[in-house]
């Protein structure tokens, strides 16, 4: 079957493309890119005044299945991904039970085969049960098809164990993704430690609890010559530590999430648990350093840290509410609104941060529009404004920190493996 996408601006930095062209998909693959392609296609997308980009690669997504299907499932999460223009996700292993052995990877793969609407890549835990006590079978996991290991949600406190993990990971050529948090420092904290924690009378999460762990993990990775990726940077010290490491030539990559460059603790005027995440929203100065880090390349990746939670887990006392927000459906628009429209990133930069770089880091063949590649493509209205509304969220959970916010940039079509898996039917005026 043929699909022709006509007359859109193709943004594909991997192939150095940034011009108005047509794109032809035959079967599941990209077949031709060129001017004025004239073929009889079964399906035609008019992309006039729109952008054609590689489908986004979101390397930080909690699909919650197996175990917490009340929050999200592979099916609902990947539908949400499609709506957000995300065609590849890296699923986090903090499910119930945790994905920590080849057997659970296989079970998860079966679910993905049956239910997923987009490409789902698998990460497994560094330690068994994510308890930070005993390493998983990294070699076995690698064979079972995972692309990274992470204890996301926590960080093993033991240097010795973590050092051992980096050693094994280096041997097996497995990427370690680090959730950087020293719980001995963040303790029972729920918001950034500072004026906001004081004003609201809530326990604070110090910046040290994050950046000291960033420094430790980079140091340990360097010693074992392992690849390390630092998840969700939220504060300026972390950005500076990563920048310094990169200057020294250490193999480190880093990511941030849309809320860390668009919201600050000042947005937490009242006790809105949809603004409770870990790491917490920091201050305006942190936002500007994160933006700078994105611009200068210190931060390689924007990933959503999509963390669905039910209303029962969110609409309770702030201290008791779960950490985390959903983000698959808003990440592109939040990035366009806060980074592209403000000229911090240009369109190719954006595609690099949200598609090409994460694919490269995960060593997966995604994030470009190269000929012969799987046709994972999105068509985006770059100037379309829309308002995030609860009733329009596809994710099973509605805990978005952008509810009610006006964003710019709307996904019109999402194509995955040559099939149109999402088409915007809403008419936004």
């Amino acid at each position: 079957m043929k699909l022709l996408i006509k007359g859109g601006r193709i943004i594909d930095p991997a192939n150095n493309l940034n011009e108005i062209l047509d794109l032809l998909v035959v079967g599941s693959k990209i077949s031709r890119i060129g001017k004025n392609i004239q073929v009889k296609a079964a399906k035609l997308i008019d992309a006039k005044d729109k952008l054609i980009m590689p489908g986004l690669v979101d390397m930080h997504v909690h699909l919650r299945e197996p175990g917490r299907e009340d929050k999200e499932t592979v099916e609902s999460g990947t539908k949400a991904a499609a709506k957000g223009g995300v065609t590849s996700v890296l699923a986090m292993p903090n499910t119930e039970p945790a994905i920590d052995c080849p057997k659970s990877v296989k079970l998860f793969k079966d679910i993905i085969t049956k239910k997923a609407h987009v490409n789902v890549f698998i990460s497994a835990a560094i330690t068994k049960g994510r308890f930070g006590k005993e390493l998983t079978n990294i070699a076995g996991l690698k064979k079972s098809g995972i692309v990274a290991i992470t204890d996301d949600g926590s960080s093993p406190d033991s240097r010795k164990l973590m050092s051992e993990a980096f050693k094994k990971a280096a041997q097996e050529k497995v990427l370690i993704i680090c959730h950087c948090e020293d719980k001995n420092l963040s303790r029972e904290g729920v918001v950034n430690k500072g004026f906001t924690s004081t004003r609201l009378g809530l326990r604070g999460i110090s910046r040290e609890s994050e950046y000291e762990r960033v420094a430790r993990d980079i140091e340990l990775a360097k010693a074992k010559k392992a690849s390390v990726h630092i998840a969700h940077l939220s504060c300026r010290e972390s950005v500076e530590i990563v920048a310094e490491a990169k200057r020294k030539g250490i193999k480190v990559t880093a990511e941030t999430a849309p809320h860390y460059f668009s919201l600050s603790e000042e947005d937490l005027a009242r006790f809105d648990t949809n603004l409770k995440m870990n790491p917490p929203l920091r201050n305006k100065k942190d936002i500007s350093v994160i933006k700078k880090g994105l611009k200068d390349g210190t931060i390689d990746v924007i990933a959503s840290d999509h963390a669905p939670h039910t209303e029962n887990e969110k609409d309770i006392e702030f201290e008791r509410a779960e950490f985390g927000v959903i983000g698959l459906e808003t990440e592109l628009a939040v990035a366009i609104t806060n980074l592209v429209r403000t000229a911090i990133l240009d369109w190719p930069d954006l595609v690099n941060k949200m598609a090409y770089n994460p694919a490269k880091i995960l060593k997966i063949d995604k994030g470009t529009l190269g000929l012969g590649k799987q046709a994972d493509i999105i068509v985006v209205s770059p100037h379309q404004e829309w308002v995030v509304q609860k009733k329009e969220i596809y994710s099973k959970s509605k805990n978005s920190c952008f509810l009610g916010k006006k964003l710019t940039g709307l996904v019109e079509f999402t194509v995955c493996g040559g099939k149109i898996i999402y088409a915007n039917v809403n008419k936004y005026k």
Partner: protein
Amino acid sequence: MNPEVFPCRDKYFEQTMWQRKDLLGLEELSPEEIRQVLSIAESFKEVSTRGIKKVPALRGKTVVNLFYEPSTRTRVSFEVASKRLSADVINIAIEASSVKKGETLIDTGRNIEALKADIIVVRHGSSGAAEMLARHVGVSVVNAGDGWHEHPTQALLDIFTLKEKLGKIKDLKVSIIGDIAHSRVARSNIWGLTKLGAKVTVCAPKMLIPPGIEEMGASVTHNLDEALKDADAVNVLRMQFERDENTAFPGRLQYFKTFGITQARLDKANKDIIVMHPGPINRGVEMSSEVADGVNSVILEQVTNGIAVRMAVLFLVSAVREEKNETIN
């Protein structure tokens, strides 16, 4: 509405502004709203001096005291206030341990609403709990203390007492001594006093001063003599040594030595300095008995004023809810 039904309703009538269903904290109140509570509290204070210390303003209304933390003073004060307004009062004390397994605060609130209560006075260990409850129920919610966040009626009664004693709040120098980090009384006082133009200084050991408190409008000192110097009033907080966070803390005697208010220290301060304490006092820890019972102390007047202030708050929030119901119908 016909202005002649009650001729006391005249042009000032239009200037009144209380529109809040709930009282959740002083951060959100305007200086005018705070002044309105204080002014109505004056009228209620007069009621408490009458032979029959009761008015029918809230006759037929039900006030539920929903307390998730043990409290005698605040609960009794709200109970007396409600009764002097002729409301019916129901006290519900919920053990903290039963919260985890039991129904949520929202469910409890909705149940109370279904009982056709009119006002829920809530005390809860979790910051923001009162606000969350207010979002979910149509009845009025009065915050009687939520976590470390706010305790608005305590601050209002402190401010009322100050105003009664010193005639004004603007430009007063008020020092708050003690565990600022974990004190909702301190936070509410800082908001209320600074909004009315007072200068607030907080004084405590470093570990009990929370970060960023200056941004709330308070200056910080770690030296008690400095905090007392030139102060018009000092509000002394209760030291809670039983807190987990305070296990590293020196101890009662050491605290008293450095931060306890003694007569000797007061003698060096302004002769007419007002000494307040939200109670219950740890005698010999935050202040000596001599000070607590001395001429500068207004601690018992605070208790008396607490009733008037709480009557004013209950009176003000009670009618707003009715308006909402009418617009719904």
